[in-house]
Each structure stands twice: as structure tokens, then as C-alpha cells.
């Protein structure tokens, strides 16, 4: 074989890895697989259940109801002019999307070890499919939010949509990417250090209380100024606060907070991809 032939190799399998090996062309080639995974996730979850996709609605509704009873009626958290139930429903829907993105992507390697151990496809397809299928569920939950929104509006509640709502899709994407990045980091580390799995389950729970889900950000500053920094350095809190502002016109929009969130998301996503890439090559030996 001559030298010229050497350049025509399609690809090389080796132990050496580039820092970022993000092959968009290959991912594009597997786009059908991505959509089929999404389809699988959406239609199989509630097969053989009586209520089917209604479960998507029951979960946030009952959580919002519980929150309203405990945090607003018992603990008297002030939600301003917005009805507490609607306030909670908005927070929970948005938080749920982040949470499911994070927890289900953080399980990617372990729960798909049997497929990953048998056949190659760009591994990132699976976490991506989780983000997309959860987006559909989030969309359904948003519909129920809109239904309640209209109901409260017709009852004369003081809520108004702001013009910033057009940026809402961008906010959702930002949140999905943050969940994806964190999830990929955790899923990579879990393959080797199983302890993290336990950390994630209760860490996510704690994170919810630090993410301004059931209280406005301003309230935290007012009542607990000493620990408010915990919430202020939490990008998820800004996302939820901003989403609530866009949907309900309640709270404030923090531009520096949004910029902070975007930067944090990009850094986490960047590291997520690097660690994920390093892990996908050999995780099957350790899992």
C-alpha cells in the first residue's frame, strides 16, 4: 500500500482521545435513532396503565396543591398578587423538567449498559433523547398550566403575561442543557463511583429547596439574608424565577443572573461533554 492510501481511512479506533470529540456529522446520521428513542420513551412509559398520559398531569397538580396547602396556607409564604396555586404550578412544572432531565440522564450509562455493551452508536444520542422526550412531557404539563391560567384570569386574578414571554423557549432550552450537562457529568462518574447515585437522589431533593420553587427569590433575601447566597449562586433558581416572571409577571428579572446562568450552563455542558466522551470509550469495562 502506498502513502496516498493511508489518508483515506474512514475512521480510527484507538485509545487516544481528543479532548472534545463531538462529531456532529455522525450525530446527524443517527437522527432517526434519536427520534425512535424519543418515541420509545414516550409511548412505553404508561403502557398498560389505565390513566396513561394523564399521569403527566396528576403529578404536578397534586404537588402544587400540597405546596399551596403547606407553604402558603400553613407557612404563609407570600406570593404577591399571584394566586399561590398558580405560582406553585409554574415553579413545579419548570422544576420538574429540570429534575427529570438531570435524574434520567445521570442514569444513562448504567441503565443502558446492555445496549452499550453490544453495539456502537454515538452515546450522546441517549441523553439527548431523554431531554427531548421530557420536553414533550413538559409541553403537556404546560397545557394544564395554561388551562388554570385562563381559569384564574377569568376570575379576575391580577396576573399578566409580559412581552418577555417570547424568550420562554430559549429559557426552556437553557434549562434542558443545564440538566443535560449535569446529568452527563454524574452519569460518567457513577459508572466508577456508585456512591454518587445516592448523592443524586437526595441532592436533587435538597436542590429544590434552594431553587426558589415554592418561594420568590426576593423573599429569601428578605427573611434569610445570611444563606440567601446559596440561592443566588444557584443557576436553577434564576431560571425558575425568570420563568415565573415571564409567565405570571410576578417577581423580578435579574439580567446579571441570566448571564450568570448562561455562563454556568455553558461551562457545565462543556465539561459534561468532555467527561462523557472520556467515559463512553471504556465505561463498559467498569460498569
Amino acid at each position: 500500500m502506498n502513502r496516498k492510501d493511508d489518508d483515506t481511512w474512514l475512521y480510527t479506533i484507538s485509545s487516544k482521545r481528543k479532548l472534545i470529540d463531538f462529531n456532529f456529522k455522525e450525530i446527524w446520521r443517527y437522527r432517526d435513532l434519536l427520534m425512535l428513542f424519543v418515541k420509545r420513551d414516550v409511548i412505553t412509559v404508561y403502557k398498560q396503565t389505565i390513566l396513561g398520559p394523564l399521569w403527566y398531569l396528576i403529578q404536578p397538580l397534586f404537588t402544587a396543591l400540597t405546596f399551596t396547602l403547606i407553604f402558603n396556607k400553613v407557612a404563609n409564604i407570600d406570593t404577591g398578587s399571584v394566586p399561590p396555586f398558580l405560582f406553585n404550578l409554574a415553579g413545579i412544572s419548570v422544576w420538574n423538567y429540570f429534575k427529570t432531565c438531570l435524574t434520567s440522564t445521570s442514569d444513562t450509562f448504567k441503565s443502558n449498559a446492555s445496549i452499550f455493551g453490544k453495539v456502537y452508536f454515538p452515546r450522546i444520542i441517549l441523553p439527548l433523547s431523554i431531554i427531548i422526550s421530557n420536553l414533550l412531557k413538559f409541553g403537556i404539563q404546560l397545557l394544564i398550566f395554561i388551562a388554570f391560567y385562563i381559569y384564574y384570569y377569568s376570575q379576575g386574578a391580577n396576573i399578566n403575561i409580559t412581552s418577555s414571554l417570547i424568550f420562554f423557549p430559549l429559557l426552556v432550552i437553557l434549562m434542558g442543557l443545564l440538566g443535560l450537562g449535569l446529568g452527563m457529568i454524574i452519569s460518567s462518574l457513577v459508572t466508577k463511583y456508585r456512591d454518587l447515585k445516592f448523592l443524586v437522589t437526595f441532592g436533587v431533593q435538597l436542590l429544590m429547596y434552594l431553587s426558589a420553587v415554592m418561594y420568590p427569590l426576593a423573599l429569601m433575601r428578605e427573611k434569610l439574608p445570611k444563606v440567601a447566597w446559596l440561592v443566588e449562586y444557584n443557576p436553577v433558581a434564576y431560571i425558575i424565577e425568570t420563568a415565573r416572571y415571564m409567565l405570571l409577571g410576578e417577581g423580578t428579572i435579574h439580567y446579571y443572573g441570566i448571564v450568570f446562568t448562561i455562563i454556568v450552563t455553558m461551562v457545565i455542558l462543556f465539561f459534561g461533554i468532555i467527561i462523557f466522551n472520556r467515559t463512553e470509550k471504556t465505561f463498559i469495562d467498569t460498569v
Partner: protein
Amino acid sequence: MIILKAQNISKQYRLGLVGTGTISDDLKRWWYGVRGKEDPFLTVGEVNDRSTKSNSDYVWAIKDINFEVKQGEVLGIIGKNGAGKSTLLKILSRVTAPTTGEIKTKGRIASLLEVGTGFHPELTGRENIYLNGAILGMTKAEIQNKEEEIVSFSGCERYVDTPVKRYSSGMRVRLAFAVAAFLEPDILVIDEVLAVGDAEFQKKAIGKMQDISKGDGRTVIFVSHDMNAVSVLTNRVIVLKNGIVDFEGDTDEGIKEYLKGENKQLRYEYHGLVNKPKILNLEIETSLPNNIHEFGKEIKFIFEIDIPYIVENLALSFQVVDEFNVPITHSWVFDADTQKTRNKGKYLFIGSYPNPKLYMGNYSLIVHLSNSRTKEKFDFLDSVCHFKIQMMKTVRSEYHWQKNTCKYIEKVEWLTYKNDEIESN
């Protein structure tokens, strides 16, 4: 044209409990990496020999494998359990990365390490065809084009819109193989998938494999234990032994080399624990020493069996197989015939072929000891008691005995007439 080239492929594994206590090793690796030094653990490790106890925590599953595959070639990879076949396949199919070395390829590789990967029990057969096809690397349009063919090849038309969880295991395998059979990668890597389904389907599968390799001129890398399938499908093989290439070349030569490496003891002995009926000793009484036997003379197979508890319906059977593990004879004895083995104790079974017709060549035995009613398997011996048949003193003047002309010679009686004799009768 060389389509795939593997250079110095090695893969190291850590023995023992992977996952715990590796932080210190990880930190050490990282520290060496930071200073630009070579990974300290790459210099340790031993050749992968399963049966000897290791002194190191690290082991080389495969070491310094080099080979090339030409376009349109069907390459076989054979080796004992633990020789490194699966590791090599996993590297080829990009499931795991090699520790050192690299593989360069000019075509897309699709691998069938197991059929039905990613089948979801809740989805219907048709939905699973799409999902499984996409996992194996097909696009939706490609699958759409072949959907009808896939369904009819699988023979599951009636059930194609039923969830796969309602399928029998055989149907699942058929459907999965059908999807895989219509893959069209440049290089197809196949691992033992033929060992599935019933005889009819296996025939269909081997036929399809032959079409893929011969008809379409596709490059295939085929890994199997089935020497018959390897010899039918491939013309070049690599024999792996303890993680290194033991032989590379012509298939027939390679298979012989592989079988030579098998435990070629002349008799079989077992000295371990006996908690169920076991074969303690097996030898062949041949007409010449060292298990060499002359054609046509009486040959005896002597089994010593320990039965530790009362067993009804004991069945002992053995097959004489040739060097490709193809069975030539099958003989058996049931307790129903002898009614002698109902009690505990050691027994001697002597089977005799008074007038064997095995042709010259190398043979060995496969032995089954089981309960003929419950089908419980007590003992199974694979390729033991190798023996050789020679055509000594059986002179044939016109032609010399040639190797491999047949496996079996039947005595024949000829009647010869001239044409006009028949007419006149």
C-alpha cells in the same frame, strides 16, 4: 484493497473487584499523566491464561494483535473461551476502546454481538424492527425499504403488530436476526449468532450469511465455536490463544491448529467432588498404543461412572466426532435396557464397536451423562480421548488411501453385468 487494519491492539483489564479502591490508582495514573509519563499500569500485567493464578492485579485480555482484512473477504476468528475473541470483537465494534494500538478502517463497521439488542418488550414487532434497525445503524428510510422483506424473512407476519413481550423466545430471535440480516454495512462483525433458532432457521441463517459474504461481496468478520460454520463460511482464519495470535492463514489449517491446542490427553480422568453422577474415567482400548487404531478392528470405549445417589433412568451416550467436531456416530445405553444402575456405587460401562467403519483420520468423543426422563444433565465431556484411525495392513493396490475422502467406509457388494447379458436374460 485492505479495508481494515489492526495494529498492536492490546487491552488490559483489572482483576478482582473493579470499581472499589481504584481512586488511588486513578490518582496515580493522573499524576503520571500530568508529568507526561507513561501510564505506570501499562507496564504490568500478564498474559491471559485463565487456569493459572495471577500475581498481578492487571491482565492483558489481548496483546499486540495485528491483522489486515481485505475488501470482500470473510475472516474467521476462533479460539477457546477466554482467548480474547470477545474482547477483540468489542474493540472492533467500538463498544470499548483498546488500551494501546489502533484499528483503521475504510468502511463502516456494524456488529452483531447479540441479536435483538435494544428490543423493547412493550413495543410491537414492527416498532422494534425500526428501533433495532436504527440502533444497528440503519436510517429510517432504509428500514422502510426493507420492512416487507424483513417481516417475511422472520416468518412472523401474523404477530408483527403484537408487542414483543408476547412473543416466544424463538420468534424474538427470528425477528431480531431478520433485522440484522438486512443490514448493509461495509464490514459486518458477527459473533455466534447462528447458534439460535431451530434447525430450519439455522439453515436459513447460514444461507443468508453465505449470500452476504459471497453474493454481495461484503466484508465479514465471523467469530464462532462452530467449526463447521467457520469452515463453510470463511477462507481465512485467525486463531487466538491466551490473547495472542496463535495462527493466521488458511481456514482448514487454522481449524486443525486450533483443535491441536485443545486438551489432547488420551484418556479422561476426573478427581474432583462427586455430588451428582460423574464420569471418573474414560479410556479407549485401541489396537495399537497411544490411541492409534487400525481400521476395521474392534474398538472399546470404557467408562467408569460414580453414582452418589439413587438415580432412575440414567442415560449414557457418546458421539464419535471428527476433527471439525462433526458427529459421525452416536451410541447410547439407557438404564431401562440394563436395569443395573439403580443403586449407589461405581460402575463400569464398556461399549464396543466390533466392526467399526470409521475411515482414517483423527477423532474424539463427546459424552453425555443424563437422566433420560427429567433431562437433567449430570456430566458432559467435549472433545476428550482423541484417537487416530489408520489404514494399516488394509492394503489397496490400485489407489493409495487418501486423506479426507470420506469419514466412513461401508462394505459393499457389487453385481456387475454387461449390457447385452441383461438383455439376453
